[in-house]
C-alpha cells in the first residue's frame, strides 16, 4: 500500500505543481489502488461487473453516487484510526449527512491552493468571509478551504456574528482591493441585512453553492445582479465556485454565465440520467466528476447536478436536479441564518 500510494501522491503533487501529467495513467493507477484498498468501492465495482481488467480509460471508471458518502460504509483507502479530519455535507440535524474522511490534509490543501492559482485568481492578502470562523465549523470543507486560502486568520475576517447577523465594520473604509467569500445564501442574507457598500476598485466577490430547496426559490441571475449592485462590482468581478464535500478539488467560473474550468487533475463527463451512458458535448445530463485529489477515498463521483460538458475540463452548470433532496454548503449557511428568525 505504502509505495503505491507514495508514487501516486508524488505524481499528483507534480501535476498540481504544473508538471505535464498523464491524467489517464494516474487515474487508472488510483482506480487500481482504490480497488485494492477501498473495500465498499471494490464490492460496488464487482456488483457492476467492473474491475481493473475491464476499465481501460478514465472515462470508464465507475462513479459512486454522492449519496454513497451518506451510507454507513466509509469510502476510504485507510483504516479508521488514521483519519485526521472528516468533513460533513450540510443538512438539517434530522437528515443523514455525507462524510468525507481524510488521512492527508496536505494533499487536500495543495489541491485547494494550486486550483486557485490555476484559475489565475488573485492572491488573498485581503480576504473576508461571510461565515463563522472555521474553529466553530470544524466539519465544514468550505470553512477549511477559506482558511487554507487566506493566510490571515484574524477574527475580523469572519463577518457573521454569533447572533446570526453580520458585522461589516471591517469592510468600511478599505482602500486596497479585497476578496469577499460567501455561499450564495450567506451573500443573499448579507445583501438583505446590511446597507450597500462599495468595495474598493479591483475587489472580487466569491460565490459558491446553490440555493435550491431552502426558504424560497431564488433566481441565480437575480442574485448575481443583487450582489454586484450591493457591493458596486461588475459581473466580471464575481467569481463562482463549484465544489462539494465529496470532492477535494474545485472548479471556477469568473463572471456571470461563464463556464466552469477544472484544474488539470479534475475532469468531467455528463451522463444520461436514465441510462448512465456518457453524453456528447453540449447535451444536458448529470455531471460526473473525476477528481484525482480524492486519492484516499474514491475518485469518481456522480452528482444530481445538471450540466452540459464543453470539453472534459469545462462545463456549463445548469442547476441542481429538482428531484434531488436539498443539499449543499449554501444550505448549512441558510440554516444558520434562519435560526435567527
Amino acid at each position, binding site marked *: 500500500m505504502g509505495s503505491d500510494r507514495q508514487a501516486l501522491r508524488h505524481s499528483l503533487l507534480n501535476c498540481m505543481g504544473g508538471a505535464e501529467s498523464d491524467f489517464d495513467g494516474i487515474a487508472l493507477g488510483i482506480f487500481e489502488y482504490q480497488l485494492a484498498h477501498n473495500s465498499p468501492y471494490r464490492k460496488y465495482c464487482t456488483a457492476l461487473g467492473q474491475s481493473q481488467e475491464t476499465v481501460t480509460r478514465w472515462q470508464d471508471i465507475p462513479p459512486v453516487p454522492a449519496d454513497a458518502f451518506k451510507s454507513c460504509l466509509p469510502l476510504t483507502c485507510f483504516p479508521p484510526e488514521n483519519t485526521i479530519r472528516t468533513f460533513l455535507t450540510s443538512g438539517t440535524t434530522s437528515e443523514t449527512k455525507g462524510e468525507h474522511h481524510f488521512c492527508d490534509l496536505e494533499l487536500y490543501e495543495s489541491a485547494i491552493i494550486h486550483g486557485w492559482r490555476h484559475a489565475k485568481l488573485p492572491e488573498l492578502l485581503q480576504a473576508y468571509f461571510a461565515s463563522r470562523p472555521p474553529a466553530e465549523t470544524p466539519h465544514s470543507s468550505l470553512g477549511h478551504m477559506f482558511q487554507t486560502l487566506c493566510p490571515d486568520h484574524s477574527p475580523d475576517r469572519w463577518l457573521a456574528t454569533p447572533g446570526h447577523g453580520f458585522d461589516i465594520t471591517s469592510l468600511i473604509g478599505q482602500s486596497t482591493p479585497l476578496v469577499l467569500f460567501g455561499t450564495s445564501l450567506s451573500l443573499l442574507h448579507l445583501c438583505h441585512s446590511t446597507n450597500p457598500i462599495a468595495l474598493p476598485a479591483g475587489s472580487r466577490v466569491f460565490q459558491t453553492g446553490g440555493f435550491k430547496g431552502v426558504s424560497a426559490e431564488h433566481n441565480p441571475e437575480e442574485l448575481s445582479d443583487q450582489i454586484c449592485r450591493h457591493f458596486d462590482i461588475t459581473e466580471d468581478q464575481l467569481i463562482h465556485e463549484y465544489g462539494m464535500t465529496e470532492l477535494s478539488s474545485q472548479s471556477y467560473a469568473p463572471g456571470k454565465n461563464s463556464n466552469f474550468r477544472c484544474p488539470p487533475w479534475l475532469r468531467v463527463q455528463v451522463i444520461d440520467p436514465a*441510462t448512465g451512458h456518457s453524453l456528447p458535448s453540449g447535451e444536458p445530463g448529470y455531471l460526473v466528476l473525476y477528481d484525482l485529489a480524492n486519492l484516499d477515498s474514491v475518485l469518481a463521483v456522480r452528482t444530481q447536478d445538471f450540466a452540459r460538458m464543453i470539453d472534459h475540463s469545462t462545463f456549463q452548470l445548469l442547476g441542481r436536479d429538482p428531484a434531488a433532496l436539498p443539499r449543499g454548503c449554501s444550505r448549512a449557511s441558510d440554516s444558520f441564518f434562519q435560526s435567527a428568525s
Partner: protein
Amino acid sequence: MTTPERLTDLANHSELFAPWTGAFTKNDLEDLINTEFGSPSALDQPVSKDEKTFHLEVPKTILHIVSANTPHAAFQSLLRGLVLGSHNRIKLPSAGLPTFEAILPALPPSLNALVETSRDLPPDWLTTAEVLVIFGNDDTVRTLTEQAPATTRVIGHGQRLSIALVLDDPETAATLAATDVCSFDQRGCLSVHDVYVHPDCPASPETFAALLAEAMAKDVLTSPPSPLTPSEAGAITTLRETARFISASLPEQCQLWESPDSTAWTVIHESHPAIKVSCLNRVAYVKPWPSHDLHTSLGKELQHLACIALHPFSDSFANSLSILNPSRICPLGQTQHPPLTWHQDNHPPLASLTTWHDQPALRSSPRRMGPGHH
C-alpha cells in the same frame, strides 16, 4: 338550481369523474350528504334534532389549489364543491392539468357555470374565497395559509404517502401490492411507497421483495409506466446505484431488484423499518414490520401517513393500527379507490367545507336556496 337537480346533473356525467373519484349515482351523492349532515335535504332545508334547528351554510366560493403530480385531487375536490353547489375556482399548476381541463367543456352548462380555472393565481381569488383547499407539499400549504385572510377557512392537504402491511398469503399480496404501487405511477397520496411484511407472515421480507418484483414486472406488461422526465429517471437511477452500493457490502441490510435496461420498476429491500419516501414512478421499499414501539420504529415520515393497506384485511387488525392515525385503512389492492365518504387527511369531505347556524327551536322557514341565490 336545487340540490336534487344538481346531483342529477352530476350523476348523469359521473363517467367524467369516475376514473379519479370512482363511479357514483345520484343515490350515492345523497347518501354522502346524509352521512355528513344527518339529512339528505340538509343543503336545502334546516335540519332538526333534539328540538333544535340547524341551518347549514355552504361557502359561496371555494378556491382549490391543486398540484401537478396527479389529477385525482382536482377531480375529488371539485366534485365535493359541486355537490355543495359552491362556485369553484381552481388554481391549476402553471403547466396545466390536461386530463382535468379536458373534461370541463363536457360538463353541462349548469355545472360548468360553477367552475373557473386559472394557471395563475389572480390576487382576488385568494382574498375572496370563503374556503381555501390546498393540495401541495407542506411548504406550499404553509405559504398559502399565511397569505390567506384570517377569516378564510383553510383545508390543507400536504405531502402524504401510504404503506401496505402483509400478514399472510404472500403470493396474492404481491400481486395486489404491485397494483397499488404501479397505479398512477405512485403520484397520489394513496400510493404505496413501502410494503411491510409482518413477522408472522410465512414469507420473509427478502422473499416477499422478490415476489413483489416478479409481480411488478408482470404489471408493466399490461400497464406500462408513463414516460419519465430526465429528472424523474435520474432520481430512480441514483437511488438504484446507492442501493447497489450498500447491497454490495451489506446484502443483509439492503437488496435491489430492478427492471433490466429500463426504469420501469424497482424494488428495494431494507432491513431498517423506518418509512422511506419513494422517488415515485414504481419504486417500492419492502421492510420488516416492527414488533414493538411502532411510532419510533416507523420514524418521522409517519406524520405524513395517509393510508394503510392490509392483506388479508381484518377489522381487528385494522383497529389495532388506528394508533398510527391514518385517514384510511383498506384492503390491499384498493388503495387507489377510496369511497366518496373518505375522510381525506382526517377531514369530513363535505362538512369540513361548511358552517352551521344554530337556533333553539324549529320554526317554519322558507326553503333555502343554494349559494348565489341568498
